[in-house]
Structures are given as C-alpha cells and as structure tokens.
C-alpha cells in the first residue's frame, strides 16, 4: 500500500500533536499563506534575536490537512535555535526534496525528521501542502529583515 510511504509515522505523530501550534507573543513578524487550490491557511510568527541572526521562536496556526500541519510542526523543531542562515539552508533542502518528484535523495543530516516528507514529493498535488509552512517562515524572516514587522 502506497499510503504509508506518504503518511509516515513521523508525519502522523506531528499531525496528531503538532509542535509550535498556537500563535505566541512576542514576535517580530507574521506571515499568512494560503493554498488557493484548497483554501488551507497558515499564520506563522517568527521571533529572532536582537541581532536578527538567530531564530528564537516560531509559532503557527494551521488550518489544513495532515501534511501541512505536520510540515509546520517539523519546521519549528528544525529551525528554532538555528541561525537564520542555517534555517534557510534547511528550507532550501526541504524545498528541493519536496519539489523533486521523489528523485531527490534527502540529506538526513540537514533535514532530520523532515526526510519523512520525501514520500509526499511523489504526489505533486500535495507538494504545496508540505511547503505552505516553509513559505510562511521564509516570508516572515524576510519581513523581519525588511523591517516590515507584523503585517501579514
């Protein structure tokens, strides 16, 4: 059965008890992303350190499928405590895997639990679900750097 390839146990665990769920204060920037094909929504907040170099906190509220919720949950585990630069490296690796149609061998060193999403890459319609939180994170970080702050 192919379902288990996509919905690996790690994904289902994150879906059932998502990390970083519930919007938190304080935060430096917030981003709202919508998947126009299905109406799923994520609002994600980012708090960086004073120098703007380290990710101190990420929180989110996700209205969406198991893939989008689990992906946002894994994201918080992976990027909190990393430098912004490191987080962008992880993001790039995640994006490459997710958009790789199952042909990209994920680097577990960089992606950790997120390698579980490799199976999602074989389902093009679900790639956007997996990327929704990551796009919100990227946008929020850019907003902090651009000084645009909390406007979604």
């Amino acid at each position, binding site marked *: 059965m192919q379902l288990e390839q996509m919905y690996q146990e790690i994904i289902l665990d994150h879906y059932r008890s998502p990390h970083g769920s519930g919007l938190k204060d304080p935060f430096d920037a917030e981003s709202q992303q919508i998947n126009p094909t299905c*109406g799923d929504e994520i609002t994600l907040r980012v708090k960086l350190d004073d120098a703007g170099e380290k990710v101190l906190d990420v929180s989110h509220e996700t209205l*969406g499928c198991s893939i989008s919720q689990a992906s946002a949950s894994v994201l918080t585990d992976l990027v909190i405590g990393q430098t912004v630069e490191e987080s962008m490296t992880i993001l790039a690796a995640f994006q490459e895997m997710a958009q790789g149609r199952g042909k990209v061998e994920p680097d577990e060193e960089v992606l950790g639990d997120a390698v579980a999403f490799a199976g999602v890459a074989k389902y093009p319609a679900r790639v956007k679900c997996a990327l929704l939180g990551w796009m919100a994170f990227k946008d929020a970080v850019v907003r902090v750097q651009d000084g645009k702050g909390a406007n979604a």
Partner: protein
Amino acid sequence: MTTAQAPAGAGLAGLDPAVLRPDFAILSRTVRDGRPLVYLDSGATSQRPRQVLDAEREFLEQHNSAVHRGAHQLAEEATDAYESARSRIAAFVGADPDELVFVKNATEGINLVAYAMSNSSIRTGLGPESERFVLGPGDEIVVTELEHHANLVPWQELCRRTGATLRWYPVTDEGRIDVDALELSERTKVVAFAHQSNVLGSVAPVQELVRRARAVGALVLLDACQSVPHLPVDLRALDVDFAVFSGHKMLGPSGVGVLYGRTELLEAMPPFLTGGSMIELVRMEGSTYAPPPQRFEAGVPMTSQAVGLGAAVDYLTALGMENVHAHEMALTKVALDTLREVPGVRIIGPDSLESRGGTVAFVVDGVHAHDVGQVLDDRGIAVRVGHHCAWPLHRRFGVAATVRASFHVYTTVDEVAQLADGVRAAQEFFGTGL
C-alpha cells in the same frame, strides 16, 4: 457527414452503465498499483465516449479546414460540420442555432456577457440598442453565495469597472438559495445564478428567481454547467436571457463551451473579442460587425471540439436526458444512504433527493478533505477535494474544504458504494473512526 454511432444502451428503458462503459476506454484502466479506476469526479470533467473521439478524428482526417472562410470543398465541409454541431446542440437545449455562441468554456461565456455590458457602459456599444446593457453607480448585479468563481469574479470585476454594486442571495443551512433574504430593486440589472450547485448538487428554483428578476426588469444569466450535462434542460422554457455551459462536463471535448443568448439581446450586444470573422465591413478608420453569433466568434474557432460536442449531444440524446437524470438520482440515493451511515460524516448540502442533482459534498470529522481524498485515491477512487472554485460557499458552511463525489452516465452503484468504505478506511488510517 457521417452520423455518430449511437451508444449501445440507447433506446433501452432506463440506463445501464454496464452497457455504456465499453464506450469509455479510460474507465478500464488501473491507477495506483493496479487498482481499477473509480471515477467520481465528473463534475470537474467528464470522460468522453469513443463516439465523441471518433467524431473528432473523422473530422480532422476528412474535413479539417478553417470554418467560415475559403470556398474550397474542405472549407465547405468544415463549415457544415461546425454549423451542424451548433444546430444539434441548440436543439438539445431548446434554442435556435443563432442563439448559440461557441466559446472556449462557460467562463469565457460569462466574461463575454460581462464585457459586452462593460463596453456598453463606456459607450463603446453598437449604438442606442446597447443602452440597455449600460451599468453605472447605483445599479446592481445580483448573484448567489453558492456560485462557482466563474459566475462571481467576472461580476465583481464588472462592478469594479462600472461602479455598480454586487449583491447576493445567501444560502440556507440546507444549501438552497434563500430567495426571500434579498429584495431585488429597480436598479437590479442582472441576476446570475447556477442552475445546479457544483458543490452541493442543489438545483435552483429557476422559475421563482426568473419571476423576481422579470418583475424588476433585470436580465437573467443561468450558469448551466452542472445542469445541461445531467438534466433535461429547455432554456426557452426556463425563460432565461443568457445561459452558459462547457463541453468537457457533458462527455464532450475541452476547449469548447456555449453561450446562449436570446436573439434580441445578442443582436443588441457589442462584441467582446474582436478581429477576424466577426466583422461586416472593415476600413482603416473603423469597422462594423457581423450579426450574432458570428459577432462573438472572433478568429478561427475551435472546430473539431465543436464537432465533438455535437457528437456528445447525440450520445446524450440517444440515451435520453430523463434517463440520465434518473440514473444519477439513483446513484445519489446510494451515496447519501451509505455516507449517512458513517459516523463522523456530514453531508454539506441537501440530504435528500428533492431538487438536486448527482453531486454530493461532505466533510469527515477529524480528517481533512485532502487526506480523505488521498486515502480514496490510494483505493483507485478519484474525487475532488478542496473548495471546488466555490470558496465563499465553503466559508458559509464554516469549512475550508470538502470532499465531492460527482457522477455521470457511466458511474455504477458499486462504484458509489465504494465511497463510504473508503471514508471508513480514511477514518481508520487517521485514527478517528468510531
């Protein structure tokens, strides 16, 4: 011209999908590791029988040429084939051939009407006869909360361009248009609504909505995308001013749709797209336009697609639209009865067979529609998940997404029954089953 071969089930009392299915080669393929395809997404696009594909191929192999230009034999044959398709499609919906404009799809048909009004409003209409399409601040366009984006966004844009106001009938908890919740006014110029909801399957009270629109002198546009493929539809009897439908939802090709307009209205409407074929006289200083429907068919039109749609109409006519509808109602009953028995499933829309068609939308507690769809897909069952281009309607019901199963002539009771089993499997997989 060869006449398309009638479907095997034609002429039988009722409709037996088992007899028709060999006409639809795609239905015998397998998906996802060898599972038989269970196609329950005909509301998005229907499958095409061999008779339609054969008609397209025969046209392309024997008659292909640009229509309405040229005087050689192929040009004559192509034009005959194209106009013959128009006539048969017109008869199918109770209209005259000259009242049918071939467009790319229903979306383009609605935009054509909206832009004809827009052009009239900036006084680039034909002349005094186009004044009736003029809109300005204070005028109203009325739609409903259950519209497909195709019958909403073009009107929003028309309002933006003209300063008119968009208003809408709300939808009841049962998924019906709440006709008493909005009063039309003398300023209401257009009332546009779906004959059958593409999500809920509910069929609109056309007669009542038309009566109210007529009472204030408003024009009525009917989005017939989900009705013409599934029910007997007589546009003249419905007394609407405009109607649109798409070929690919009625066993025909994509890339072809139809705008119906009453002759008197089409004659007074300025064009939307301009260019070749739609002209009467062209000088460097300006041009005059051909009478309808040519006025609205600029450029070399889709031809094999129109021929294919003609064959699709022949196919449906041979089956009998009463039979098609009865068949889909029987399937809908099975869908509603079996889904209702699954704890945690909530039907969005009418939970009865009254004034509805063969489209069933639902949500499953604790399992997102995408995830339900994925489990169904794993079992070979193709459904639509998401908002189905009716986002405001989903917001109305407080859900981001629904699962939608939709049927056609080839859908079997056994296929529909697999739906509820698949939903139970999804609940089990995500640990939400009761």
